[in-house]
């Protein structure tokens, strides 16, 4: 079983904790001939694919290496500009390596605060009275489980699809939060969680769950 990440969102909707666990590296390398059959978008910070897909390279993937040489933003390691290199026919055949962009901290904060209104609207649009917000959200590549405590803190776990008992794991994370965050005298509520003991215990828990399954967590 794979757990991709744990997020904790405070009651006002801000991301206060995030742990990436087991994030897969998606990289694809391919040798291209002139002219390049991918349409690239030259941003000020990165070069990404904007059209066409090929051998696992998809729209949105970012160029990370040219002929094995790492790309920093829009320039190669030796100072050459990526665009002029790719535009020159004499540089072909050329080997390009693309990767699915990793989420930056800013994007994570953005996504966590985006989940908050979705949760609220889902409960407002309910066809039945007294509905909670989103508890499980499933897509083809992952499942998101959300547990909201009585005090409004949301615990979110992103895992692979088809797992049982994630709600048990969420409660266990809540227990760790109560034990190692709330009882930490240096922690103030609603602030980002920086507690070493909590980090360690959570990582231990996830490692145990990945090895032996959720049913074996000690109560």
């Amino acid at each position, binding site marked *: 079983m794979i757990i991709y990440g744990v997020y904790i969102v405070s009651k006002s909707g801000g991301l206060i904790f995030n742990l990436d666990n087991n994030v897969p590296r*998606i990289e694809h390398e391919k040798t291209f001939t002139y002219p390049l059959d991918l349409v690239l978008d030259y941003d000020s910070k990165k070069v990404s694919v904007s059209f066409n897909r090929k051998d696992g390279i998809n729209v949105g993937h970012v160029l990370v290496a040219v002929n094995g040489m790492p790309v920093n933003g829009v320039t190669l390691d030796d100072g050459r500009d990526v665009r002029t290199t790719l535009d020159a026919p004499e540089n072909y055949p050329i080997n390009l390596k693309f990767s699915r962009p990793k989420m930056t901290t800013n994007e994570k904060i953005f*996504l966590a605060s*985006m989940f908050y209104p*979705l949760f609220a609207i*889902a*409960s407002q649009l309910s*066809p*039945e009275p007294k509905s909670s917000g*989103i508890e499980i*959200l499933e897509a083809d590549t992952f499942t998101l489980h959300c547990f909201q405590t009585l005090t409004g803190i949301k615990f979110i776990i992103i895992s692979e699809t088809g797992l049982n008992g994630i709600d048990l794991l969420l409660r266990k994370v809540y227990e760790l939060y109560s034990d190692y965050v709330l009882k930490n005298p240096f922690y103030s509520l609603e602030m980002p969680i920086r507690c070493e003991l909590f980090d360690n215990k959570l990582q231990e828990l996830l490692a145990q769950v990945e090895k032996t399954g959720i049913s074996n967590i000690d109560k």
Partner: protein
Amino acid sequence: MTIFNLYIFDKFGTLLHYAEWNRTKKSGITREEEAKLTYGMLFSIKSFVSKISPHDPKEGFLYYKTNRYALHYLETPSGLKFVLNTDTTAINVKELLQQLYAKVWVEFVVRDPLWTPGTVVTSELFQSKLDEFVRQSPIFGIRNI
């Protein structure tokens, strides 16, 4: 198991059709506003899912569940969106939505010469066939409270 309501949107977010069966709670806003809110929420969920997904998504968002209902989502390659609210125990809803698209939507709306794409579906034949289709599905079942 039961089915509460169905929204059909086109790719621009126009509500093409709305139907409800065992809905017990109104959201307290007009039909148009509710449709806009639903579409807006789904639009955000789609973008949320594509960003947070650890792999490249193919179909993307499938459904979400709360403690009272489940919202199932099917988007066709042409951007048509079917949104079906059921209770949380319903299974195989994706197949039901695909059937609904192939057997009801395509047959009675797409093949209706009086329907212009992008406009609200007013065909009574479609409405009665849809009603029949939903009521006969195993998910519709008997309502247990």
